[in-house]
């Protein structure tokens, strides 16, 4: 074996360093491409893309969900109509607005076999608004009820059993409204005895307006999301129309003496579902997300969402919730085999919140402005 010449050794070392230097950018790019997460865009109410809900999905699929949060269905429709197709991979909407999305061609058709409908309660298999004929456009993720939200120290359970409590002079100036016309008008429509609270003949619509105007003197304020929380928490408002456990549940879990009662006139039901945005370039991933969030594990995360809790439509999700969070399952009445929220739906104690059918949305919002000024 002949010893190598020091100069040739040096040349070899230099060649190796140069080679490594030249290869480094390529290696780095490759490494980056393996680790850089794919971006999935989501248009949703606040909370749906927070870590407590999506962290597991993001880690599993190496995805980063980029949310655009909205407040209210009108806001959501406006954001979509002003964005080019494909801007949002996932669109979360309330059932009444899904119909508008479908009519405007803003969402992709979905394949029912891709989603765990067999695990859902039968009431949610063919949910109105999510289907057009046999075509599926949206999959329900969560739902909740709207009723009489009240301060348990100031209002008794018996008093909260009817929407009439909103007009009780003992609570003058202490009744608040969540500042959105649909739920508040819907509740008063139920109080007026309308089985279909959003399908009002002209005469009935007139009576609903009169009934609501008669309550106006009791109203202490109209509040946005943050204001509703604050006024219930500090006790300024002891009754709040137009909301449900999605707000009082958060407060209750943090120790505030507030609760929502489903009154004898019945409650309203809201729903949230996911669709795939028209022209999405990551439809497989979007589908995987909907599968994740409708799976038992995803459903539990959704029910426990820190921003606002909700009920879930997946029976296996209920089982898992009871196993993992029995206290919350009890609080939200999602315990199989015991009296639970499905009894309220089956007993027709709740009606779906919807858009007005015989008046325009404009008529309702104009009346709401007049009401606020009354």
């Amino acid at each position: 074996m002949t010893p190598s010449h020091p100069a040739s050794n040096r040349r070899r070392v230099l060649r190796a360093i140069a080679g490594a230097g030249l290869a480094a950018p390529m290696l780095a790019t490759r490494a980056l491409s393996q680790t850089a997460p794919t971006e999935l865009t989501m248009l949703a109410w606040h909370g749906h893309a927070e870590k407590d809900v999506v962290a597991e999905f993001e880690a599993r699929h190496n995805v980063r969900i980029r949310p655009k949060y909205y407040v209210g269905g009108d806001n959501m429709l406006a954001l979509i109509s002003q964005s080019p197709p494909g801007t949002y991979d996932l669109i979360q909407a309330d059932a009444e607005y899904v119909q508008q999305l479908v009519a405007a061609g803003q969402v992709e058709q979905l394949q029912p076999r891709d989603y765990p409908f067999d695990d859902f309660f039968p009431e949610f298999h063919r949910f109105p608004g999510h289907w057009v004929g046999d075509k599926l456009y949206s999959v329900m993720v969560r739902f909740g009820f709207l009723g009489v939200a009240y301060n348990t120290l100031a209002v008794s359970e018996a008093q909260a059993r009817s929407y009439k409590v909103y007009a009780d002079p003992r609570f003058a100036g202490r009744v608040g409204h969540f500042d959105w016309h649909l739920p508040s008008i819907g509740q008063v429509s139920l109080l007026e005895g309308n089985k279909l609270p959003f399908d009002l003949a002209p005469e009935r619509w007139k009576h609903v307006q009169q009934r609501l105007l008669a309550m106006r003197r009791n109203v202490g304020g109209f509040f946005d999301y943050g204001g509703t929380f604050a006024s219930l928490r500090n006790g300024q408002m002891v009754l709040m129309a137009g909301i449900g456990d999605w707000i009082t549940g958060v407060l209750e879990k943090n120790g505030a003496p507030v609760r929502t009662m489903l009154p004898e006139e019945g409650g309203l039901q809201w729903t949230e579902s996911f669709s795939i945005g028209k022209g999405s370039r990551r439809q497989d991933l979007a589908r995987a997300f909907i599968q994740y969030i409708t799976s038992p594990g995803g459903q539990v995360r959704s029910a426990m969402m820190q921003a606002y809790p909700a009920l879930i439509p997946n029976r296996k999700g209920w089982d898992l919730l009871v196993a993992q969070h029995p206290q919350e399952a009890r609080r939200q009445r999602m315990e199989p085999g015991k009296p639970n929220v499905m009894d309220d739906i089956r007993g027709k104690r709740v009606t779906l919140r919807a858009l007005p059918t015989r008046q325009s949305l404009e008529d309702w919002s104009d009346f709401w402005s007049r009401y606020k000024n009354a």
Partner: protein
Amino acid sequence: MHLLTSAGSPPLAPPHELPASARPARGRVAARPFTLAHSVPPLAWQLAFFLGPLLFLVVLSFWSVRNFRIEPAFEPANWLRMLAQAHVWETYARTFGYASLATVVATVLAFPAAFAIAFRLGANARRVCLFLLVIPFFTSYLVRVYAWQVFLSDQGVINAILGMLGVPPQRLLNTPLATLVGYLTLSLPLVVLIQAMSLTLVDRRLVEAASNLGCGPVRTVFAVIVPAARVGIVVGALFCFIFSFGDFVAPLYLGGGAAPTLPILIVDTTKAGQQWPRAAVLALLMIATLMIVAWAMTAYAYRRRA
């Protein structure tokens, strides 16, 4: 001449200005590009950030909304609909009334403080006071308004104090009074600042002359000092009116939205069916009102004495 005082104001033309015919022609030619260069930034600023958006707002007010999509059009429907609604005018009257009340209250409350700063304090103490008046602006207005909720709520600080004095709890939050408190939180420090600066610049010889001529202290204030500081007082009031008229935060978070003002109505209009064109009508109504009020008050402030 001082912009904040009116006593003894010379004509508006700058002093020592020569008639155009008396200026050398060469200097005029040389000065023109220089003058032009100086006037371009404010002109460009006004075009980009005031006239441009204003024109767009005017155009937008004639557009239409179909299926939540804003579409270019030239229809007077938004104007006809909004101006025909009684609740719009009720809201307008309420907003104007609230802003006017805030303006009067702020001006009256600010004057004693500004007077003390200008006439009673030494130079160092005055500087400290002016600095203290700037401090509220270090904190977000929204945060200050939320802080007021702690004071004004039924179980708040004020009611706790009243309770100790044997006074039953008063409803303070979600009332017009709370809205007024919010307006003053926003504008009072600025009104005091402007008034104080204006009063500081009042010619002391006028006060001495009034005293020498046998004018009592109260009469000196109203007959000499207030007229001399008229510009500052009116400009301070104008700022208060502008801030209050356009404020969204106080009527919502302290007034509870129970007595809606125009800014709240604008937000409601945009939320209801994405009606930005109708909201533009309301915004233009507000801008027109503010321009008329600003013009009238400025004209009064700089009015020459007969």
